[in-house]
């Protein structure tokens, strides 16, 4: 039986891990390789780099960063942010990423998912979906949550999988950064709609929220970022709570 996974997300820019500080822009919080290794040692099941670079110069450092990380990290590494073409995905994989998440580019050109899955295999194609509640449904947004689309999140998740995505990274825009818990209804709706793993994202404020994402949301994996980086909790503490809750998780020897 597959374990539920705890995925740690690091925002990277210009080869460094950065953190958004309200009204003050971005603050450098460390070396991605060091942080990724530390989270592996603590028991993280996977690391995701979300590239938030604004310029081509900054983005150019990403592949070198992925290469350095892959040489020292022995758990899966996913990369997302600004991936637009089959060539981008190939570059990320050659650099050492195990998976690549595709967001806005998949909405603009859904055939991209199929092309990547055929070329590299469905296991490395992650459909990243940013969704915001709209009445009794969820609307898909692109461009970092700024641009609304006409897509319904559940239907779009189904289409992504039909087109070749091997996983869905599902982020609630409403909950992102709010630390009030994952959008459990959204997570459940998508988990029930697709037959590939769903990674719940957006809203983790405590270890209990992660447990809810699994037990009530039906997620296969949960993405955490800020609460770990800020030291509010630890990978070990989250996993201890999950284990207490009877969830099947990987223990670190």
């Amino acid at each position: 039986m597959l374990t539920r996974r705890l995925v740690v997300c690091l925002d990277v820019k210009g080869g460094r891990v950065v953190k958004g500080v309200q009204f003050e822009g971005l603050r450098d919080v460390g070396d991605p390789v060091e942080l990724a290794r530390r989270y592996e040692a603590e028991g993280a099941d996977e690391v995701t780099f979300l590239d938030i670079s604004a310029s081509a110069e900054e983005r150019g450092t990403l592949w070198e960063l992925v290469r350095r990380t892959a040489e020292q990290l022995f758990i899966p590494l996913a990369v997302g942010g600004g991936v637009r073409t089959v060539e981008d995905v190939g570059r990320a994989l050659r650099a050492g990423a195990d998976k690549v998440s595709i967001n806005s580019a998949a909405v603009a050109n859904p055939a991209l998912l199929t092309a990547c899955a055929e070329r590299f295999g469905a296991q490395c194609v992650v459909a990243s979906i940013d969704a915001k509640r709209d009445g009794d449904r969820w609307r898909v947004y692109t461009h970092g949550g700024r641009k609304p689309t006409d897509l319904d999140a559940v239907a779009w998740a189904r289409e992504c999988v039909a087109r070749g995505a091997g996983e869905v990274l599902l982020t609630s825009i409403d909950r992102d950064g709010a630390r009030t818990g994952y959008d459990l209804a959204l997570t459940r709706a998508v988990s029930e709609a697709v037959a590939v793993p769903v990674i719940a994202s957006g809203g983790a404020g405590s270890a209990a929220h992660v447990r809810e994402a699994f037990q009530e949301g039906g997620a296969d994996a949960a993405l955490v970022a800020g609460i770990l980086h800020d030291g509010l909790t630890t990978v070990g503490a989250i996993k201890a709570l999950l284990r207490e809750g009877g969830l099947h998780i990987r223990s670190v020897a």
Partner: protein
Amino acid sequence: MRVTLFDYGAGNLHSLAKALATVPGAEVRVQEDPLRALDTDVLVLPGVGAFGAAVARLAPGREAMRAALEQGLPCLGICLGMQLLFEGSDEGEGAGLGYFAGRVTRLATKRVPEIGWNQVEDERTLAGARLDTVYYAHSFVCRAAEASVVTGWTTHEQDRFPAAVRRGRVVGVQFHPEKSSTAGVRFVQTFLREVAP
């Protein structure tokens, strides 16, 4: 000890190469030519790509590679690399090495690909490294014709499949040891120390 990764061209060998290189004395190299890849002390068949494309790259050296394995060349096949050790695959055209009897077929489960950490049961591949929970990313599995070569099993939903096979100095694993954290790296190290000293 020369350790050669046969590269089918799909890329991403960084973590595996580094895991192998942690063993003192291991000189890790990457070779795209299947015949040249046999000029080595240990052959590693990595786990990225699709079966059809990989056997096409392997074809010019297929007979020689199979003969080398039968003659005792230590070999570790990972994921797709394990599948190449079998006769053929539903994933793509072409003949595998046929070192192990059996075919590669799609996981008979609702959730395909299997992505994530799963347990290995009844594991007895290597004496010095026991496996527990390891990382999988695959859609196909090896249906070994002889259960005696299977040295570990994993169950995904209702499908129980070989996690590891071994005959002589040839080991195949369906999971990714290079992505299975400390325990996986230890498995790779132990393989080099135990099977290919």
